[in-house]
């Protein structure tokens, strides 16, 4: 095993999962935004250690955007009507899901292949995105456009009503 890749992988895994746990417990928007940014940084490191440099770059940009949105000071807080008991049930269900997925990862197996693509792979992923799976890319683009337009309309509409 290439020890440099392995060290990078485990450090990135610790940063991403730690950032996620901090996201669950930290109060305040700014600290939650920092936690989400740390998660994105860890995810980018995970992708880099998996020789997916282009995906790491996309994830870094997208999670930085998510962190900025979560840390923004102007959005309204909507309190959840669900009581504490159901939140605890949800937490236990998340732990059960983790146990199930970890068991599936431990028991699962697949035919191993030798990886021969490069470390960044922007040209190959670009060919996949715009030639092989162009319809999926257009569908995601339409989804993003609809989500952004809807978010802008709702944001402006609520602001005008005040």
């Amino acid at each position: 095993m290439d020890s440099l890749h392995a060290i990078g992988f485990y450090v990135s895994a610790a940063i991403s999962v730690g950032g996620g746990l901090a996201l669950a417990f930290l109060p305040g928007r700014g600290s939650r935004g920092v936690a989400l940014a740390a998660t994105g940084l860890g995810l980018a490191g995970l992708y880099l250690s998996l020789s997916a440099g282009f995906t790491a770059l996309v994830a870094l940009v997208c999670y930085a955007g998510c962190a900025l949105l979560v840390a923004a000071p102007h959005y309204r807080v909507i309190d959840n009507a669900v009581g504490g008991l159901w939140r605890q049930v949800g937490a236990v269900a998340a732990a059960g899901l983790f146990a199930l997925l970890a068991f599936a990862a431990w028991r699962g197996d697949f035919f191993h292949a030798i990886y021969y693509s490069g470390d960044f792979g922007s040209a190959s992923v670009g060919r996949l995105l715009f030639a092989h799976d162009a319809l999926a890319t257009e569908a995601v683009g339409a989804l993003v456009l609809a989500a952004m337009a809807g978010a802008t309309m709702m944001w402006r509409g609520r602001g005008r009503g005040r």
Partner: protein
Amino acid sequence: MSTDLAFPVLFVASALVATGVFVVAWRRDLTAAIAGIPLIFGGAGVAFAGVSRFAATGGPPLFGQEVAALLAVVALALVALGVGIAGRGTPR
């Protein structure tokens, strides 16, 4: 990097998905719970990228990386939509 990391990659992906579900279930305010969605999508993306890195798939070898990149973009769009639906208000 050899295939020794195949199980740790899937294990970390499982941890990320479960952490995202935990954030969604645990946060009291819904706008903070939205922040768990990128974690879930990130975990799924790591699993896709890991399988395309280690496994002999029937499709293109970089398909998992492509799906992981698309999932990151979709996560950003969903967070933006959630914050937009919440609308403006006083910070807390």
